[in-house]
């Protein structure tokens, strides 16, 4: 399998979806079945390619960047097409190709209005290229380009297929449709972060021997090339770029709007993959290149994460909208991920890695379920839902299961990320202020209780009780085969990761330890 060792396989995982998207635009609109089959096939092929990578990957040296390549790209600025994967990026890459397949399966029969499968499926595939590319890029400019490519498809997905409810938004004279407000807000927030991130990349380039290569910059960074005010400023702008994407409190305000407005598949991809681009950026770029600054900023990140956890849970308790509740729960879960990262210990960052995957799987599934329910009931108002177990037994059962996974029930995937993040925060890297971290840990622990609280309350309001009379004469469809085939794999994955967390740690552990020992010594 030489093709996979010289980077061609990895490039194929990145660009195959893009090429397929282009082919889809050439298929006449009337050939809907052909378009759908083609999109499904290409997402499956991409997933198979990434699975082959999984077998080609040498897990015994997971800390090394593998299966990549480096080709000159923009000579005049010394930016290269440099790609590769290690134990940190591999799980996320596979997650991304996997979730895309499920998203397309779900879309085969459940396209949001206005249908138009051609545009929708093409956008999903373009999105996949951006996501996969971000996880394999080892050059800052390449990373930036992929990081930004995801914006356009998501903008259009929310804006065209999103929620058409009219609402009043402060600052707008007239009422505005949710989708229009949410889509531009998502775009502007992210671009604001990444515009400054680009300035930070340029700063690293000029101080770091005019290279954009991430491995080279890590070497320079760990040997102390970036210091003083310069490094503080660069870390600040990188923080801005990544924290908006995660999103960390108080930069999270785009997220509830975007999630609520996005079509089901859009929410799934947004929660499962797009948010990870930010936390991945911290682990891949910000911490290894600027370790001293990461250390200086870690307490602040921990405090913001703790606030995010508490704030997210409290906001959930106040929600009446099912999708918005899940969106705010993302703020809380990503708070755990960032708390783990802030501890700068192997256990904390491993927790963040498994937390990212688990959040992708579980929250992805929650958005699938809530989207499907919103479609069936034509409302997301939890006050009107109720007795879902009786009306839609399959969906209801899955919702119950996923909520348990999301609140961190031991034995399911969500447990490891939360538990180990708290463990990491209890005992952060030497030299970090333990008081701050232990306070954050306590806040996080309170957060887990609150999380359990709002999820159980949500189940009580939605799943249990007697159905209200308004549904009695309606013909409600429970999950069909397309939905189940998109959801069951996620259920299996949730259990598998919960029981065998080594599935993730086996890849990430060596890479995380190597990264940290390089950055902080010992």
């Amino acid at each position: 399998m030489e093709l996979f060792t010289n980077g061609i396989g990895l490039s194929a995982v990145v660009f195959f979806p893009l090429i397929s998207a282009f082919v889809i635009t050439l298929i006449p609109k009337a050939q809907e079945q052909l378009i759908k089959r083609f999109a499904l096939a290409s997402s499956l092929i991409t997933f198979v390619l990434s699975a082959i990578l999984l077998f080609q990957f040498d897990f015994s040296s997971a800390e090394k960047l593998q299966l990549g390549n480096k080709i000159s790209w923009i000579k005049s600025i010394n930016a290269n097409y440099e790609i590769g994967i290690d134990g940190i990026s591999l799980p996320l890459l596979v997650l991304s190709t996997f979730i895309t397949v499920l998203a397309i399966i779900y879309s085969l029969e459940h396209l949001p209005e206005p249908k138009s499968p051609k545009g929708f499926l093409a956008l999903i595939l373009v999105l996949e290229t951006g996501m996969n590319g971000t996880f394999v890029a080892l050059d800052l400019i390449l990373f930036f380009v992929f990081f930004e490519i995801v914006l356009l498809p998501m903008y259009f997905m929310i804006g065209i297929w999103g929620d058409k409810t009219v609402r009043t938004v402060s600052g707008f004279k007239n009422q505005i449709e949710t989708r229009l407000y949410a889509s531009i807000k998502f775009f502007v927030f992210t671009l604001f972060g990444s515009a400054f991130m680009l300035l930070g990349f340029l700063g690293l380039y000029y101080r770091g021997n005019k290279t954009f290569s991430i491995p080279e910059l890590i070497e320079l960074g760990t040997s102390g090339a970036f210091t003083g005010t310069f490094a503080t400023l660069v870390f600040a702008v990188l923080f801005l770029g990544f924290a908006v994407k995660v999103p960390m409190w108080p930069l999270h305000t785009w997220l509830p709007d975007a999630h609520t407005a996005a079509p089901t598949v859009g929410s799934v991809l947004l929660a499962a993959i797009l948010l990870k681009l930010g936390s991945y950026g911290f682990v891949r770029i910000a911490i290894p290149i600027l370790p001293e600054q990461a250390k200086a900023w870690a307490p602040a990140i921990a405090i913001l994460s703790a606030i995010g956890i508490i704030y997210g849970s409290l906001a959930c308790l106040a929600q009446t909208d099912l999708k918005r509740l899940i969106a705010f729960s993302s703020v809380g879960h990503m708070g755990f991920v960032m708390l783990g990262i802030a501890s700068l210990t192997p256990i904390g960052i491993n927790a963040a890695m498994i937390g990212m995957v688990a959040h992708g799987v579980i929250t992805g599934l929650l958005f699938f379920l809530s989207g499907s329910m919103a479609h069936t009931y034509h409302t997301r108002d939890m006050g009107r839902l109720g007795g879902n177990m009786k009306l839609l037994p399959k969906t209801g059962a899955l919702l119950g299961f996923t909520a348990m996974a999301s609140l961190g029930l031991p034995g399911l995937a969500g447990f490891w990320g939360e538990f180990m993040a708290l463990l990491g925060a209890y005992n952060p890297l030497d030299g970090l202020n333990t008081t701050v971290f232990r306070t954050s840990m306590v806040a996080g622990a309170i957060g887990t209780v609150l999380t359990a609280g709002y999820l159980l309350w949500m189940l009580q309001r939605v799943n249990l009780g007697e159905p209200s009379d308004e549904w009695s004469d309606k013909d409600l469809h429970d999950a069909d085969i397309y939905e189940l085939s998109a959801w069951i794999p996620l259920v299996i994955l949730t259990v598998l990761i919960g029981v065998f967390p080594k599935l993730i740690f086996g890849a990430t552990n060596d890479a995380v330890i190597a990264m940290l020992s390089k950055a902080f010594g010992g």
Partner: protein
Amino acid sequence: MILPRKSKYYVAAFALLGTLFSLAPLVIQWANYTSPIYAFENSFVVDKFSIILKGLFILITYLTFLLSINFIESDKYYQGEYYYLLLSSLLGALIVSSSRDLLTIFIGIELASTPMFLLSGWKKGDRKSNEGAIKFFLLGVLSASLILYGFSLLYGLSGELVFSNIASYLLSASLASSPVVLLSAILVISGIGFKISIVPFHSWAPDTYEGAPLPITAYLSVSSKATGFVALIILLTKVFAGSGSSWGIILVIISGLTMTLGNLVALQQNNPIRLLAYSSISQAGFILAPIAISGITGDYQDGIFASVTYLIIYAFMNLGAFLCVHLFSNYAGSSDFYEWGGVARKSPLAGVLTTIFFFSLAGIPPLGGWFAKFVVFRSLLGSANSIGVALGVVGAINAVIALVYYARISKVIWMDELKSVNEDKIFQFENPLKVVGVFTVLITFVSGIFPGIFSYLGEVSSIFFGN
């Protein structure tokens, strides 16, 4: 003009072929290039820098002709004169890119802009067209006199016309950073500032753009602007390099103001042409930024590389944007783009093109605009100068503001409801326009995905500055 009236059709064909053929000598020159060739006692030069710019000007004019064909035939316009005047303007632009003395460059600048006074008033019955043309004419004359006054100071000081002689005289008489030279530089910047519509010399642009025939507006915002920038780059680096730190500061302030003001006003627009007018003002601020910083740091090579790269990418994506505006305003019969709700569904091709060009203008990867913005940021931060970094931050904020109005057009055409009046109309997308669309979209994509093709410019700008 000598052709009989019934053979008007040939005029367009002849003009198109002529422009295309004029590319041939450029290609030959490029292929056989060894070193800069000087003519007329060093006042005219053929180097790689000028060859590339000439290629750019010819291509822009060619695309403008393609844009014009249907437009000119759609109404009773004078055809022969139209093409003749555009070609004259092209000649002016070609002269500017090679000129190395005061007279030649002045003739070039004026030859490039004078025909535009007439062309911008081409819609004779239209009040706005007349108003715009008058404004343009009056300010154009003012700008010419400012440039001339600046030149006369230089000539009075040195008694020389050729740039290299002036520069060496100023250096030997240690006048290079004297107040008189600075005054001359300011006058020249102000004069050319009108051509490139930078703040505070921008006020004519929106009115003239709105009134002029659309192909002419496109040409004004691309070719005239490029001509002005090339003249400015040549003059600042060849003549005024000695007082760089003084005009550098002035240009930094102008550049920051131009980006910001253009953007803020563009946010308020509902007329697509005025929106593009203000957007092009804001883009001019970005093009100016590297030149401004290079004045302060003295690293002209990097500044010129960034500005020229930006100019080239901007030219094609902006032409594309005008094409899309032309298509949709024709279709919806309205110059208020909020009336264009859902029109992309009538022609997904035009809708996709619009999206690509406008997001490219906003600088979203992988479209060409990102590389343009990137090289500008690169040269600003590369100066390792706090002024440069500050201007970079201003630019970054502006890039985000700009997204709001660039995205708005895509939002309207894709996401809003189709207006009932537009439901039964047939979308017209003529073949010449398709050529423009395909050509510009290709360049927009290629320059975004393989920006390596601009590498040669780095070398070229070193050649330019080496002589």
